[in-house]
Every structure is written in structure tokens, then in C-alpha cells.
């Protein structure tokens, strides 16, 4: 089993237990990003986390976006490490850049 599939199984178990869940997936990376495309982070409404989308630098910001998506149901595509003024912009110490897709597990 790959680690991204483990994360899905964990997310499914949380969802089956009645918790809203969102899944974040790294969809593109540039430079020295620590986790490759396909890496997943599951976030539950109560704040449980499984998996990862970085070395820990952006998980907090992704979790915030995930909670939004849980509520609205609307997926989001987040850019990290690219200089713009968006609210969830955080720096990556490694100098990498990545895009993270956030979707609700309906």
C-alpha cells in the first residue's frame, strides 16, 4: 500500500464515523518540495490530521482551507511559495513551490 492510500482509508473511517472530512492533495511541485505530487493530507472537522503535503510548513494553512471546503463543499486550488497577496500565503523554508488541491469527502 502506498502512504497516500493509507490516508484515504483513514479519511474514509473518519467520514464513516460521521465527521466532515476534506482531503488535500499535492498536484504540482517545483524546486525542492519535500513531498511529491500525489501526497495527501486528510483533515477532519474536529482537527484530526493524517498524512502530509509538505514537511510540516504548510499543513496549518491547508487545514484552514480544508475547514472552509468542508463547510462550503467547494474545492480549492492553493498555491504555496508563490509571492502573491492571498490570505493563506505562507513561506516554504525549503524554497520549493507547490499547488495543493483541497476537496470535501462527500
Amino acid at each position, binding site marked *: *500500500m*502506498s*502512504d*497516500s*492510500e493509507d490516508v*484515504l*482509508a483513514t479519511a*474514509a473511517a473518519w467520514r464513516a464515523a460521521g465527521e466532515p472530512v476534506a*482531503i488535500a*492533495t499535492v*498536484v*504540482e511541485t517545483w524546486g525542492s518540495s519535500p513531498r*511529491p*505530487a*500525489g501526497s495527501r493530507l486528510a483533515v477532519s472537522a474536529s482537527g484530526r490530521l493524517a498524512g502530509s503535503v509538505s514537511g510540516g510548513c504548510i499543513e496549518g494553512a491547508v487545514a484552514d482551507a480544508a475547514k472552509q471546503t468542508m463547510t462550503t463543499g467547494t*474545492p480549492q*486550488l492553493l498555491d504555496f511559495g508563490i509571492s502573491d497577496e492571498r490570505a493563506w500565503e505562507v513561506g516554504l523554508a525549503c524554497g520549493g513551490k507547490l499547488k495543493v*488541491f483541497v*476537496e*470535501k*469527502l*462527500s
Partner: protein
Amino acid sequence: MTPEVLAALEAAKSAKRPVALLTRLSDGTQHLWPGSDLPAPLAEAAAKALEEDAAANLTQDGEAWFIHPHNPPLRLIVVGAVHIAQALVPMALAAGYAVTVVDPRRAWATAERFPGITLIHEWTDDAVAALAPDARSAVVTLTHDPKLDDPALEAALTSDCFYIGALGSRRTHAKRVARLTEAGHSAEAIARIHAPVGLNIEAVTAPEIALSILAEVVATRRGAALAQRPALAA
């Protein structure tokens, strides 16, 4: 992600069937391939992502798609239910490998020594051949007994497994090379065998040797320079 897509991914995982998940990034629309009728460029990208085991991005009709392969786990076939195997098996599981232990000696290959692991008690050539190692499989022989190791290695050499490793010193391996040559295997085929098995980290204890073996399996899988060895002097 809908419950249907999640269930289909889980079903493919249980059946050890490769499947690619395609996500349209503008709105989260998802398809699974194989299993859905997709425009040729998307289907081709899905097939390639599965073959290369690497995620991909594609723009089709002005829409960005993320193509996420979900392959069955890599496999590790351990021949010899020995002490080093007891250390190697849990490490390989943690690294995401599906592990099978082969040893006809029932006193060694017991559920008590290898809890929850698939154990095969057949003779090692039959067992390895039946497991049909493929390009996502590694085979490691640890019995240190030519009667058990050699038949397993001969079966592995006829497969396209990505890694073959054999426990034993350089001298032991030189004798092994002579036997395999005698048995008709080419020098090129025999050179596929990593021996002495494992990266040279001066490992001493069983867990350290297991770590060196798993490190070499990963290095080979990922194409690391560390996994390349100079040919043994004839």
C-alpha cells in the same frame, strides 16, 4: 470526492488492481481509469502515469487535470524465515511493501515468528515461480543454504523483478556465481544479484542488516547511484 469514487478506489486497492484518479482542478470533477470513457489524451496520460507510477498534470480543452496513479503495493519476497527476516519484514511493511516469506522449514516459518505475514512452505523455486515476481517485486534470499537459496535465485533470475539480493560473504557469493554459471545462467543475468546483500553500512546486528537490505531495495527502486556496484572481479 464522492463516496462512489472513494469506494471504487478502495475496491481497486483490495483487488490489487491499478487505477488512476483524474481530477479536474477547476471544479473537482473526478473519473477513474480504466473504468470510464475518457478523451484519448486523458486516457493515454492515465495509462502512462500508472506505468511510470508518477502523478502528472495535463491540460485538456482548456481545463487543468491532475492524474494520480494508484498502483498495488511493491512486493518483497523474502526467502528464509531467519532472524534477519524477522527484522526485515516489519521494516518493509512500514515502507509500504507487501511482504511474503518463503521457507519450506516449517520450524522457521511460523505465524509466531511472523505474525500476520503470508508464509509459503513450498520448495523455494516453486514458491518464487508461483509468486510470479514482476517489475514491482524484489526478491531477497537469506537462508544462507545453497539448497534453498539457489533454486529461489534461479526462479528470480527468470523474472523481471527489479531487485534480487542474496545474503552471504563475497566468498560465498563467488561460489554461488560458479554454481549459477554451471547451471547455465549468463554473467549478465547473475550480475543482477546484489551480493553481499544490502548497502555497505557496516551493519552488524540483524536489524542493522535488515536496514541495509531495505535501503538497497529502495535505492534500486529509485535509481540511486548508491545501488550501483562495480562488477565483481572474475
